């Protein structure tokens, strides 16, 4: 652990990216959490997921472009990320995790950085590579994902002060928690929609009665 680090807030994500093992310890020690930086990364995640669908070269792009709908991209980036944070927090507070919601949000966002870099590289490269050179694209894509996963494990381990096995178990159960949260959210939405339809039909019925 380095105690002489004195980085500005925006440099911390890059620092932890380059130091996947001890980077988060330094961050925790120096309290390098910054919500603004984290939000910038999350929004970049959203923008890059849209860009990946729209700007990837034709040879590597399988997006159905006849209809463009922003909502799936938003829910598969920002909503998914927020669900991860909420799911992880609600699980780990019950299992002696030390991280606060803010801490989890920040470290998780910082862990996304390699993935975002790899996606940008893939988007640019896909516009001048041939299909036979698609190996590079796959390589960068997987490199980014693996690096991000390693960072995420490191982040969870540090922010909650867990052992590695406990971290892995926590991550698996976080995914389960996310599924439950999303299921309940969809259920709630459907029920409210039915309530809305019910109220709306009463309203229209009444309006017909009164207009006669």
């Amino acid at each position, binding site marked *: 652990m380095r105690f002489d680090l004195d980085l500005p807030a925006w440099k911390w994500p890059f620092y932890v990216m380059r130091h996947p093992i001890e980077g988060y310890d330094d961050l925790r020690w120096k309290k390098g959490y910054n919500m603004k930086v984290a939000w910038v990364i999350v929004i970049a995640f959203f923008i890059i997921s849209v860009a990946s669908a729209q700007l990837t070269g034709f040879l590597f792009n399988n997006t159905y472009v006849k209809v463009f709908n922003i909502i799936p991209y938003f829910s598969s980036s920002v909503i998914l990320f927020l669900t991860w944070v909420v799911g992880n927090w609600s699980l780990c507070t019950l299992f002696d995790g030390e991280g606060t919601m803010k801490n989890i949000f920040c470290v998780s966002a910082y862990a996304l950085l390699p993935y975002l870099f790899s996606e940008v590289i893939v988007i640019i490269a896909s516009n001048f590579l*041939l299909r036979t050179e698609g190996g590079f694209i796959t390589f960068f894509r997987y490199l980014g994902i693996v690096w991000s996963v390693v960072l995420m494990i490191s982040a969870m381990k540090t922010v909650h002060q867990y052992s590695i096995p406990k971290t892995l178990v926590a991550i698996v159960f976080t995914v389960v928690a996310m599924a439950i949260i999303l299921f309940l959210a969809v259920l709630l939405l459907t029920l409210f929609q039915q309530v*809305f*339809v019910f109220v709306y039909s009463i309203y229209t019925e009444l309006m017909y009665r009164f207009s006669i």
Partner: protein
Amino acid sequence: MPFMKKLAAAFVTAAVAAVSLAVTASADEPYTGYNYDWWGDPIPSQNGFVVDKVIDGSDLGLGKLDYSSYSSTMQAQMKALAEPSDIFVDQKTGAFYIVDSKNNRLIITDSTFAPENTKVVSELTYGEEFPESRSVIKSTTFKTPRGVYVRTNTDGVKFIFVADYDNNRVVAFDDDGQILMEYTRPSSDVYDANVTFNPNKVIVDSAFNVYVIVPSITQGAVQFSADGTFNGYYGANRVEATAEVIAQQFWKLIYTREQIIAMRRSVAMEISNIDIDNEGFIYTVTENKTAETDVLKKLNPAGTNIFVNLGYDEMTFGDFASRYYKGKNYASAITDVDIDEEGNIYLLDFTTGRVFQYTDECDLLFIFGTKGPQQTQGTQKGTFMSVAAIETYKGKVYVVDSRKNSITVFKQTEFGGIVQEAISLFNEGLYDEAKAPWEEVLRRDANYWLAYIGLGNAYLNQNDYQTAMDYFYRTSRAGYNRAFKSYRIEFIRANFNWILTVILVIVVLLIVWSIVKKQLQKKKAANKGGNS
């Protein structure tokens, strides 16, 4: 919510549209031409084929046969053809062979279908060369024949092969009805003792090897050599990799021998029909709504599917989407295949009564024909009830319907002709000459995506890579890849100086920057040291 309602409505409309694309208001044909675009969505297209005429038994001057063996109600329904199940056209002589299954006869006619050119074969005689037991009987009849194939040998003797379903044999005879050869159930150990031999379809290759489709056999077509000996099976389908099959592979690692034997065996689906093209390649189809692999195969003489190397076996043949609608499965069931003189592949879909025309490279050209609504009983021209077989002769397509008891003749439209012309030129490598017809195609139907590929190839041939890329964009990835490869080389050659300069400048700047940074840090350190 109105949005959800709209969405639901849109889904239902899409499903209905996909299932019953045949519904039209004003067109002459009872079906609307359509095609599939880059994303696999059905899009309207112009008709490539329209109905020329419908031939039934009365056109052929039949019906004078003895119906005494049938009940009177059946007689009324039967007209002159009764459940025809196969058709074959001899491309050289133009003779048509129609299998009239329920009447146990073979009808030989020509493309005019005139009564005076029509001949009926229902009785065969055994020749001298057959052993005593056979020549005693002297004559024989068909019993539910299901398939026919004709090949003339080098001596000019015409062999008519009929798959005689309920007689458990394939019989070969000449024009006079004299039997030349009989292929019966093989006595070999390879042939499973429990399996019957009911030939459904038959083809013969140029070496007079006979390939027989038996519905109960999943190992492929039963192959006989010219002298009637059983050669084994040919061109079996692969076992579809369903979840069950994969699970079984896993259990086989653990189970004992006895358990493995007791396990439900996963077998491939049986081949349902077969055809052979001019070059001797054999095509097989699998008529099963759930079949996803090996729906259409092109086999070399060794029985290997050559579509696998080309990647065509991954394609969906027949209709793409909307397999289920209101609890009913509408997936395509390809019941027959035919290859025309140009190498186009025609697939006949039993479910929808549609014909799918593909190029030899499996690009979808046209979809035509349809299944009629239940009420009309397929009486409308161009609609079917139960399609059985397809043949082509001189640009016309002949579809046999075994419940309408008729043959529907489709002729090519002007649009279809232009497309065909363009493809012929294209296949000969005359890309520039194909440009004019392709442009005409696009003028008539801007959705016709094969035209974009054709034009892309034409421009690629003229080394106009950028235009080629525009045409290939979202029509052909392989074409785009080729155009882009050349474009990229050209681009780098043209701008090499610039690119190199930019890279050099960046490298120099990076070096300068690192030196400056180091010196700044040194200064800082020196200042710090000085201060303390």
